[in-house]
C-alpha cells in the first residue's frame, strides 16, 4: 500500500506538471490546433492515465474519504474528466446514436429547418430530431454618446483603407506618407450647403431648423501652400468625402504620380456599437410550436439534448441567423464536477480552517 501511495502522489505530481507543460505548448498553438492536439490519440491515453491516477488516489489514500474537502475536489476532477471525455467527438462516436456533437444552422426569417451544417464546408452533416423556425432576427444598438458628432477618417485610395482620426475644433494632425497637415477650423452640428454659381457646394452654414447634417471646415497645408475646404454631406447621405489630391497649389503641389497615394478626408455618421443580436426561434413538432425563445448571446435555447447559440447573422440585411448547435452529452456530469471542485476547495482551504480557528478560540476562552 505504501508503494501504491508513493506511485499515486508522485504520479499525480508528474501528471499535473505534464499537463501544465502541454497547456503552455497548447497556448502557443492557437485554439483550433490546441483542440486537435489535446484530442489526439496520445493525449487520450494521457486523459485515461490521469483518471486512473485519481482512482488510485481514492484506493491508496483512505484519508481522502475522511476529509470532505479533498474528497469533493478529487471526485469533482474525476467527474469533469469523465464528462468531458463522454461529451467529446470521440465520446459521441463511441456512444453511438445520431447525436452530432457540434454543428451550425443557417435559418432565414420565416424558414423552418432541421439541417445541421459543417462550419468549414457548409455541407449538411446531419439533421436535428426536430425542426426550428426563425420568426425574426434583429440587432440592438447602443445609443451614440453624441449623435451630432460625426467621425472623421483618413482614407487611402490605393489601399481602400480608412483610419479613424481623433479630432476637435482647433486640432491639427499630419497625414502619414504624404505629410499633408490638416487643421479643423470649425464644425457645425447641423448645417445646410452654400452653393456657388455653378451649383457646387462651396461652403456650409448653420441650419436654423437644426435638421441638417453636420459639416466641418478644414485647413489643408502641404509644401507651404494652404487651402480651406468644407466637408458637407449631400442630402440623404451619411457621409462627406474630400479628396486631397490636387488641392494643394504652388510649388509643392501634389503631382499626378502622387495620386496612387492620394488620400481623402471622410466625415461620416458613426456606426453605433452593437449591444445585442437576437433571434426569435420556435421549436416545431407536428406543425405545432412546442417551444419559443429569443436566443441571444449569453442566453441560448436548450431543447431536446441540444443548446442553440447565437453566433452570426446576415451582415447585409439581417434576414437570417446563424446558430451554433451543441450536443449536451456529458455536460451535467461536468457541471457536477465543477460544483464539487469549488465546494471542496472552499471547504478544505477556507471553511475547515475557519471552523478550527473558531473552535480553538472558544477552547482558549473556556
Amino acid at each position: 500500500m505504501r508503494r501504491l501511495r508513493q506511485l499515486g502522489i508522485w504520479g499525480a505530481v508528474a501528471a499535473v506538471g505534464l499537463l501544465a507543460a502541454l497547456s503552455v505548448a497548447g497556448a502557443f498553438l492557437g485554439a483550433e490546433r490546441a483542440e486537435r492536439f489535446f484530442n489526439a490519440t496520445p493525449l487520450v491515453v494521457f486523459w485515461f492515465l490521469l483518471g486512473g491516477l485519481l482512482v488510485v488516489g481514492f484506493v491508496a489514500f483512505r484519508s481522502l474519504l475522511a476529509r470532505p474537502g479533498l474528497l469533493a475536489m478529487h471526485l469533482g476532477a474525476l467527474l469533469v474528466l469523465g464528462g468531458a471525455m463522454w461529451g467529446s467527438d470521440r465520446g459521441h462516436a463511441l456512444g453511438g446514436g445520431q447525436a452530432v456533437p457540434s454543428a451550425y444552422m443557417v435559418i432565414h426569417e420565416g424558414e423552418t429547418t432541421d439541417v445541421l451544417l459543417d462550419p468549414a464546408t457548409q455541407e449538411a452533416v446531419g439533421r436535428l430530431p426536430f425542426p426550428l423556425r426563425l420568426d425574426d432576427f434583429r440587432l440592438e444598438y447602443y445609443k451614440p454618446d453624441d449623435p451630432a458628432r460625426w467621425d472623421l477618417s483618413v482614407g487611402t485610395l490605393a489601399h481602400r483603407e480608412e483610419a479613424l482620426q481623433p479630432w476637435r475644433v482647433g486640432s491639427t494632425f499630419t497625414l502619414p506618407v504624404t505629410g499633408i497637415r490638416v487643421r479643423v477650423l470649425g464644425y457645425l452640428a447641423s448645417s445646410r450647403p452654400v452653393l456657388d454659381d455653378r451649383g457646387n457646394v462651396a461652403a456650409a452654414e448653420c441650419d436654423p431648423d437644426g435638421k441638417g447634417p453636420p459639416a466641418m471646415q478644414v485647413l489643408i497645408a502641404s509644401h507651404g501652400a494652404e487651402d480651406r475646404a468644407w466637408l458637407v454631406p449631400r442630402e440623404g447621405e451619411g457621409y462627406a468625402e474630400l479628396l486631397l489630391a490636387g488641392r494643394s497649389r504652388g510649388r509643392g503641389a501634389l503631382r499626378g504620380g502622387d495620386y496612387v497615394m492620394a488620400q481623402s478626408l471622410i466625415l461620416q455618421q458613426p456606426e453605433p456599437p452593437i449591444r445585442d443580436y437576437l433571434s426569435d426561434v420556435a421549436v416545431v413538432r407536428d406543425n405545432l410550436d412546442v417551444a419559443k425563445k429569443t436566443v441571444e448571446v449569453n442566453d441560448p435555447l436548450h431543447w431536446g439534448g441540444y443548446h442553440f447559440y447565437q453566433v452570426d447573422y446576415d451582415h447585409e440585411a439581417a434576414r437570417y441567423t446563424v446558430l451554433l448547435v451543441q450536443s449536451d452529452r456529458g455536460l451535467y456530469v461536468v457541471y457536477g464536477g465543477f460544483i464539487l471542485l469549488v465546494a471542496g476547495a472552499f471547504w478544505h482551504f477556507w471553511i475547515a480552517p475557519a471552523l478550527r480557528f473558531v473552535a480553538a478560540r472558544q477552547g482558549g476562552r473556556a
Partner: protein
Amino acid sequence: MTIHWTALGILLVLAMLAHLAAAAALGLRWRGAGHAAFAGGLALAAGAFVVRWVEVRHLPMQNLFEVFLSMGMLMYPLSLFCRRFLGVRGQAADAFIGFVVLLPAALVFNPDPQRLPPALQSPLFAPHVAAYLFAYVIMAKAAVHAVLALAAGEPRPGRWSDFVAGLRAALEALSDRSRPREPRDRAASERAAYRMAGLGFPLLTLGLVLGAWWGKLAWGDYWHWDPKELWSLVSWLLFLGYFHVRFRLGPRYPRLAAALVVCGFGAIVITLLWVNLARIFAGLHSYA
C-alpha cells in the same frame, strides 16, 4: 507613461503615490503614518473605481486598465485580514504590491471607456472577474513571501550574492521582518506563502469554473482551448502541483515549495498581461 489630467487620472496617481508612501513608512516602522497612507490609498483607489463605474455605466472590470484599477483597492483590506486572521505579516510589501498594481493603471494603460460587447453582458461577468482579481492579489502576496523564503539564509561571497543580499534586505524591510535567520525564518516565510496560497486557491478555482460556465453560455462550450484559458489552467495546475508536493513533503523542503509558488505566480502574470498584450496569443479573450 502619461498622466491623464482627468479626475480619474489624478485620483489614480494619488492612490499610487499613497501606496508608495505607505510602503516606505511601514518599511521604516512608522506605523501610524504608514497605516494612514495605506488607508488613504484605499480611499483614493475606491474613489477612482466609483468615478470609472459612473463613467462607463458598468462594473469597471472590462479591460486591463479597469482590472488593475480594481485590484489596486484590494490590498489594504487584504493586508488587514491576513494580519488579523492568518497571522501573515508584510504590510509594507502589501502596500508596495498596491503601488505596483496601480502604476500601470495610472500611467500606462489606455483609459478610454469602452462599451460592453454582447458576450460580456452576463451576470457571470462580475463574479468571474472579481474571483480572479482577489485570487491574483492574494497570490501576489504569497509570491512575496515565497521569494523571501528563497532569499533567506547566508549568501556565499560574490557579486551575485551581493545582489541577493540587497534584494533580501529590501524584502525584509518591506515585510516588517527582522533579518532572517536560518532555518526558522525561511520556514516562517514558506508557511506564510502556504497560507496565502491556500487562501487564494479556492478563488482561482472559482474563477476558472465560473469562466467555464460562462463560456458554455456565451460561446457554446465550457472549454475552448483558448490561450487565456490554457494559461489560467497552467497557473491553477502549478498551485495544484504545489499543494500535492507540500502534502507529500510537508515543510521540509521550503525552497522547492517556495519556488513552485513563484512559478505559479509567474503563470498568473503571463495569464493576466502577456496573453492580452502579445499578439501571438490572439483568441476569444482579446477584447480584455
